[in-house]
């Protein structure tokens, strides 16, 4: 249990850093989605099923869709 938790936390920090590191918005959004999935696994490991369900649905599902539609709108304008 503890080993799995440590692996998940390391992967969580890794995906958060990668989401900040990349300049491409699409890759950042995909890493945020991975972040939410790992966080869901951590919540489930700590027996918080309600929060895990909310995180999976909102973080991995809805946020990704809304961010995708947002970047598809800002892609048309020229940015630095």
């Amino acid at each position: 249990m503890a080993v799995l938790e440590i692996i998940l936390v390391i992967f969580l920090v890794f995906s958060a850093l990668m989401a900040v590191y990349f300049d491409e918005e699409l890759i950042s959004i995909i890493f945020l989605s991975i972040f939410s999935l790992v966080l869901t696994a951590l919540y489930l490991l700590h027996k918080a099923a309600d929060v895990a369900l909310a995180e999976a649905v909102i973080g991995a599902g809805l946020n990704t869709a809304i961010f995708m539609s947002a970047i598809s709108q800002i892609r048309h304008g020229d940015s630095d």
Partner: protein
Amino acid sequence: MNKLMKKIMISVVLTGVAFALYQNFSLMPEYQGLNEGLSNYIIKSGLNDTGSLNLITAVLYDYRAFDSLGESTVIFGAVSGIVLILSRKMLPVSSKGLSFIVKRALGIMTPFIALFGFYVITHGHLTPGGGFQGGVILAAISIIFSIVYGSAFDYRRYSPQTKTLFETGGALTFLGLGLAGILMEGAFLQNLGFLTAETGTLISAGSIPYINIGVGFKVGAGLAIIFYSMIQKTFEEDF
């Protein structure tokens, strides 16, 4: 402002946030175990007070139902603001959608997603889940329609007027149950005692299942409206 100044500013702000978080967390009381404090009271007598097996739903929609009403109001305000800013006309220029294979596969899967959403909403007082989570699952169906079949399909099936009707209906259900609590039990959003049935059955736990259904429809319709008004300008420019 050059790059170095920007990085210094960002580090200063991040350090400040970390310091504030550390201050807040150091003020929190130590973990006392499950045998003391408020959580112990809820674990001991939550089932007797509310009749809800899922204690988190009991806290959300019975002990702290007023906070949930505030959350729904926040979502309502967000939806109103986004629609006010982004929505120019109600029927956007739609895309043709994705390929035939994706359309058929999601045509088979979508009813089961809807069924799972309704299951999560109606069993909120028995199993993990509740109105908010199930409502977001229902909003995902509208997002699938917009992306896979094109937003004109979404408009024809569930027009924004229908979604508005669902949202206001859910909010009015929540408020009406609160007023019924005043009339029958003496306090706003008090759990209605005469609706309680045998613990563990689908229609039990007083007014909690009905509040769940209201919140589910409200949140689902609200988030679907947000996504719909965000997507429409994109398709206007693309096609």
